[in-house]
């Protein structure tokens, strides 16, 4: 069973015919070739598949593809600047040395971007809570939290 859906994907209106059995994660990766979004646990526990839907983060592995009909979806590819350069949050992750294996980072960055939009002047504790749905098995999180702090500071200077 397939359904035609219309939604906004990284600022671009798109339409597609999608199998109703697909998760949003599967649709993004296989139908749209947006492989920046990763599959980790597949049950909504690790946050590697985090994307923005109508300005809220969700785990796209346990979110049906048809649910984005009429909505606005942002993936890690939509976070990067249009000219291909890193966004300020991505740049801060590099500066802070927040990336080791890198698998969790697209989800971390999508969560961080949405969080900073909602809360431009966060405390460290608020950052930790905002990223509590994203697991990293390498770093121990300190430098990831540092990165979000750097990005928040950078936006204040602007």
């Amino acid at each position, binding site marked *: 069973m397939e359904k035609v859906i219309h939604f906004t994907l990284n600022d671009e209106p798109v339409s597609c015919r999608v199998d109703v*059995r697909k998760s949003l994660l599967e649709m993004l990766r296989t139908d749209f070739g947006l492989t920046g979004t990763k599959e980790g646990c597949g049950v909504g526990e690790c*946050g590697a598949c985090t994307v923005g839907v109508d300005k809220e983060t969700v785990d796209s592995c346990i979110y049906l593809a048809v649910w984005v009909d009429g909505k606005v979806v942002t993936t890690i590819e939509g976070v990067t600047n249009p000219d291909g350069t890193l966004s300020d949050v991505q740049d801060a992750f590099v500066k802070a040395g927040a990336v080791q294996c890198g698998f969790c980072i697209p989800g971390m960055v999508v969560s961080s971007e949405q969080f900073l939009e909602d809360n431009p002047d966060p405390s460290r504790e608020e950052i930790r809570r905002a990223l509590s749905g994203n697991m990293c098995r390498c770093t121990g999180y300190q430098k990831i939290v540092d990165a979000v702090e750097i990005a928040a500071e950078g936006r204040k200077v602007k």
Partner: protein
Amino acid sequence: MYDITGYNEAKSLQDVFDLIKEDPKARLIAGGTDVLVKSRERKEGFVDAPLIGITRIPDLQDIYLDDDETLVIGSMNSFTDVETNPLVKEHAPLLSEAVALVGGPQTRNAGTIGGNVCNGATSADSAPTLFAYNAVLEIHSPNGVKNVPIAEFYKGAGWVDLEPGDILVKIKIAKADYEGYQGHYTKFAQRHALDIANLSCACLLKVENDVIEDLRVCFGVAAPTPIRMAKAEAYAKGKAISEETMAEIGKLCLEDTNTRNSWRASKEYRDHLVQILPGRNIMAAIGEA
């Protein structure tokens, strides 16, 4: 891909009734944070059946105060909606605090309070608090509307008072059940996020000059369903807040709970928590912990 046989987006309650009539095997799905996980695990009833999406039905969305100031929460509000809603924060702040402890932000953005209740888990983070507020569930079906007190809704582990065609529309908390109460909720778990409680405890109380006028205690994961502590609550009425009172409340709770061993925690550990969490919650609720 999920092993489901179809998907329909219901636009109204009537749509739900019609779709269920067409195929009684069809399952309602809200935010999907439980249903899709179970589908992936290939649990019986969650594969090989069509799903009916209900999150876009207008009747299930609002949060408002009724004419008699009953707090009414539409079942399809996400945990984030409930946590941040000004009416919930003002009148039932304990519920706002409890749902803020569900999973992580992503789960709270997708998962709904109605789904949390209908999933029937004893560990549901909204449940102990809703029990303490004496929440009433408004359930609609093709045969009409019924109002079920939440304590009667939970029948057993993962088993709630819903027939095919029934849908939870509203969660209601009467003014007399929230006005003047203060409370505290403890989710006792290994991690601060993305975890399920080893044991959870909600306490709501009315206090006058350090004397307990009314106390409500509800545990999650202390029995197959969330469970209120009738003996401890009866004992506490009129008692002064003291270490002895807290200890006695804890002891009496043990008479009403039925904890189990699981990989998360042993029965002994849970029984220990049953005795100490109510006292801790009460002290936290009155601002002395």
